[in-house]
């Protein structure tokens, strides 16, 4: 059958539904049927499922002309989704199309929630379309005979690729695809992505690096010739949607706080918005903030009981599914949510979105705005609720950004050895692997295009010897090598522990919260529960709970009637202003420095700007502001580059390090999106900093690396790395295994590597990742170059200024010191029991 005949089958199906295929859908069908790989750039709710599922079915029809009477077994396509919650919706849509065309094709879901028996059934007899997550796909690669299962694949579709791209799950995906390219010769790879700044790069990462390096490595090996990027296409849906941004401006500016991240002061002002619209999603930036808002709305407006709900990643699945269903059938007035509701699922009844606190990125803000009002032609409305005064500037900037359609990049990971090690053990657990055959596949991925022979050998040694040389009497045991040179895992325990750990790439050190009487409530981070003693109470998932005992990574709790202010908090989720947002923000400030005050937000801020200008200034584009003052905490030195949190983190560390070379000194560092603080117990001569040219870009890389060694940033990155590479066993939320004598924490490991094996690739990776993903070294360079052209304005103030206030009150801090511990301890006191 010709392609045009095939697509006309789909056309007529669309017609029976009273729809007309979008041009981008038809374009995708044809490209797919021509055997192309590609990336489809289309927003949620635009019909992207039918853009790619349709040609998969058509291809099946083409390959099996008597498809109506005889069903050919074997899996045809895998649909990857980053969130389990999305799979049901995709299944329904896909199944409907397959059934209406009488193909007899089946659609199945396989995620962490799929039952054992269902999984076993699937393995024996795969559905035609399997909807799954990156982790579950990895688990399939960890089972024997996976090559036979996947032989018949015609397509892998990676949905919401932009979400996976900037994460290690994206690397997992790259590696899985590198294997499937060999075992599934018919396979095409397609990604679906929302609009981001680096769409072309997103396409390259998905399809693999097709540069000369990888080709030369491939040459003398038997790897299948996969054309990758060469035979690929980028299709843009180009569906524009109007978005209206409204700021919630405090009625009384005098009482609006200078700092804070909760925004509860404006709670009353959202009530009319909730009442006016059918269903509202209230987006918060962190899970703790989500918990608190839910709690407070109910406290102040008990009439909403039963009409509002909460949705975040740590709440158990049943509750989340219930909430999603309730949104669909319009039985909820409002849902307080985190990014767990950012993606996918179409919620037609949602009319209004409220964003609490700065969204930090334009892409994220637009995505959230797009969650509302799926009726074509009508604009999406998003209300922005600032949590402190300075965020009103952000609101003003956001409006400009939305108009200008500025988009950020998602930065892909490079050389993630932790994920590679996990992957190699995965292959060893299933059918075993020959390094000669796998290396070219890995080298052809985007992530590992730069891997050297030495680094590859290091990884092989790591999984077989647990070190880089054979040690006497060593009992290290993970991966073995047989006489033919095949790498395999022989111990059942190693295999089981590995399978359990595959899912931990997204959640490390999580503790389950359960009732003593049974019943799972959700998961929270170990660091929070670790601080509590039995009998302590806390609020989680909207309930007050008392900790009874902590056992085997599970916190057993009971309901409590005690009042407590101890609301669950989570470490993750602090985001930083993107460089695009930062630039727009600086322009807003310039207009403020000129006293234009030409937007409602800036007008509202008049009092605060006046106050700022009492002792200091509102810096314009050509000024770099430094404020110093003394409080009872010590000597504050606050710098304002307005470059976003991550750049400030790097610049703060760099500057502190360079100052500490001049004389022994100890700093505590804090930063937000506007600036950073170096707090010390001794005064700092800013003139000295200026005279010594400490903002220089000379030796930048070197100094930055050294400053990183003296702070704790890399230590935090190491947590993930230790878990993913299998050095820390956390078990898995739903299955606890006995690892009592194997419990250690990544902190301890970090120290051990620092002291005994600093050249360990995984240890070094922690620093590299901090560089590439946290600090955005490139941005730092640009920022310093900009500062070099600015006039430095040093203001010695009597007291904290409005700009400095949110920074100096931040409790999440780094430290850097060039003093001897013994000298420091003399000026310190013991923390005593209260």
């Amino acid at each position, binding site marked *: 059958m010709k392609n045009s005949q095939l697509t006309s089958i789909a056309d007529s199906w669309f017609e029976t539904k009273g729809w007309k295929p979008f041009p981008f859908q038809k374009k995708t069908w044809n490209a797919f049927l021509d055997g192309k790989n590609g990336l489809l750039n289309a927003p949620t709710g635009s019909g992207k499922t039918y853009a790619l599922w349709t040609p998969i079915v058509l291809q099946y029809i083409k390959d099996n002309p008597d498809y109506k009477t005889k069903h050919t077994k074997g899996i045809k396509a895998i649909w990857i989704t980053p969130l389990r919650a999305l799979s049901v919706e995709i299944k329904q849509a896909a199944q409907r199309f397959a059934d209406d065309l009488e193909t007899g094709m089946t659609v199945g879901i396989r995620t962490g929630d799929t039952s054992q028996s269902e999984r076993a059934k699937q393995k024996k007899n795969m559905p035609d379309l399997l909807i799954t997550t990156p982790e579950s796909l990895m688990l399939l690669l960890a089972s024997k005979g996976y090559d036979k299962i996947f032989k018949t694949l015609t397509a892998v579709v990676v949905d919401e690729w932009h979400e996976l791209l900037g994460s290690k799950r994206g690397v997992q995906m790259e590696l899985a695809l590198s294997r499937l390219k060999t075992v599934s010769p018919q396979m095409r790879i397609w990604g679906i992505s929302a609009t981001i700044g680096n769409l072309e790069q997103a396409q390259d990462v998905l399809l693999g690096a097709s540069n000369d390096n990888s080709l030369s490595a491939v040459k003398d090996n038997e790897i299948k010739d996969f054309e990758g990027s060469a035979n690929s296409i980028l299709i843009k849906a180009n569906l524009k949607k109007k978005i209206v941004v409204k700021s919630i401006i405090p009625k009384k500016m005098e009482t609006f706080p200078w700092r804070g991240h909760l925004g509860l002061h404006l709670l009353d002002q959202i009530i009319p918005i909730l009442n006016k619209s059918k269903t509202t999603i209230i987006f918060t930036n962190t899970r703790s903030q989500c918990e608190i808002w839910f709690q407070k709305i109910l406290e102040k407006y008990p009439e909403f009981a039963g009409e509002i709900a909460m949705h975040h990643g740590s709440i158990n699945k049943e509750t989340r599914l219930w909430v999603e269903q309730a949104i669909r059938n319009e039985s909820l007035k409002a849902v307080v949510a985190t990014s767990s509701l950012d993606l996918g699922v179409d919620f037609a009844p949602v009319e209004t979105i409220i964003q609490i606190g700065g969204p930090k990125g334009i892409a994220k803000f637009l995505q959230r705005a797009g969650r509302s009002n799926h009726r074509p032609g009508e604009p999406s409305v998003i209300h922005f609720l600032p949590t402190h005064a300075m965020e009103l500037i952000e609101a003003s900037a956001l409006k400009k950004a939305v108009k200008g359609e500025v988009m950020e990049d998602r930065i892909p990971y490079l050389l993630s050895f932790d994920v590679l090690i996990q992957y190699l053990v995965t292959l060893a657990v299933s059918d075993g692997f020959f390094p000669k055959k796998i290396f070219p596949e890995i080298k052809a991925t985007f992530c590992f295009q730069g891997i050297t022979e030495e680094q590859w050998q290091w990884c092989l040694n790591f999984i077989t010897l647990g070190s880089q040389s054979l040690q006497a009497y060593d009992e290290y045991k993970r991966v073995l090598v047989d006489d033919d040179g095949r790498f395999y895992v022989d111990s059942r325990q190693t295999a089981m522990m590995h399978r359990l750990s595959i899912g931990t790439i997204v959640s490390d050190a999580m503790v389950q919260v359960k009732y003593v009487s049974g019943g799972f409530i959700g998961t929270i981070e170990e660091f929070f529960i670790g601080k509590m003693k039995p009998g302590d109470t806390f609020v989680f998932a909207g309930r007050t709970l008392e900790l009874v005992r902590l056992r085997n990574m599970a916190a057993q709790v009971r309901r409590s009637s005690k009042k407590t202010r101890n609301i669950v908090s989570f470490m993750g989720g602090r985001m930083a202003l993107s460089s695009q947002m930062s630039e727009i923000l600086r322009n807003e400030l310039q207009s403020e420095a000129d006293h234009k005050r030409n937007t409602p937000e800036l007008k509202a801020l008049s009092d605060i700007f006046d106050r700022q200008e009492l002792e200091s200034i509102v810096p314009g584009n050509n000024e770099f502001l430094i404020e110093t003052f003394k409080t009872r905490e010590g000597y504050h030195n606050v710098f304002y580059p307005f470059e976003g949190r991550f750049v400030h983190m790097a610049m703060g560390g760099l500057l502190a390090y360079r100052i500490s070379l001049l004389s022994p000194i100890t700093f505590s560092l804090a930063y937000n999106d506007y600036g950073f603080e170096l707090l010390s*117990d001794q005064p700092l001569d800013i003139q000295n900093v200026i005279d010594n040219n400490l903002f220089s870009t000379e030796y930048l890389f070197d100094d930055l690396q050294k400053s990183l060694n003296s702070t704790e940033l890399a230590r935090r990155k190491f947590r993930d790395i230790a878990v993913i590479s299998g*050095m820390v066993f956390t078990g898995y939320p739903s299955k606890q295994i006995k690892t009592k004598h*194997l419990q250690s924490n990544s902190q301890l490991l970090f120290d051990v590597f620092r002291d005994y094996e600093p050249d360990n690739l995984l240890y070094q990776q922690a620093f590299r990742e901090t560089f590439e993903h946290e600090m955005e070294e490139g941005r730092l360079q640009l920022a310093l170059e900009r500062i070099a052209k600015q006039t430095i304005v040093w203001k010695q103030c009597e007291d904290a200024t409005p700009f400095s206030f949110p920074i100096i009150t931040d409790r999440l*801090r780094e430290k850097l010191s060039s003093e001897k511990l*013994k000298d420091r301890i003399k000026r310190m*006191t*013991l*923390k005593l029991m209260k």
Partner: protein
Amino acid sequence: MVVKIHNNTFDLHKSGAIFWQEQSMLLIADVHLGKVAHFRKHGAAIPAHVAHENLERLTNTVDEFRPKNICFLGDLFHSKLNTEWEDFASWTQYTNAQIILVNGNHDVIPKYLFKDLGVQIEDELIIDSFLLTHHPTKRDAFFNFCGHIHPGVRMQGLGRQTMKFACFFKTKNQLIFPAFGNFTGKYILEPTKDDEIFVLVDGEVVSVS
């Protein structure tokens, strides 16, 4: 750092051990030998020489005091038998002191293996008015030496400075040892103003209370 308790003299050592002068006894808690090998056996690639360093420090500390007796206050071995046992066995032959092990919760290695090496095993040890145990234990009229907790304290200073240190944690009738082993964590305690705290810092023992 020397401390007097019940008219006896105790040397608090930078390694986390204590030398009891009157008894010529070296007291050491929570060495956790074999922990590194145990992790490696289960596929976690902790650098193997971390284990060697542990035994090396033990040897150096013993050489410094040349005690007649060495008493381990529990958790000498982290888990089941592994290759680090061999190293320990040859170490016991090298040292001249009488070795006593007060059992801890991690000590699961069969007692006869210790006895074959001439190591004396006890559930607790009473010497004069001193009670030596692994778990902190209160008993009237006795001063208790114990381990198990791996104590640490938090220090704070101006400019929002805080730091954590391993320490000897002494209350009126008890002294909890820091963990001797190098691959062990610490548990942060909050002392009251009556407690005496000696932290391990830069290779020294410093009194901070």
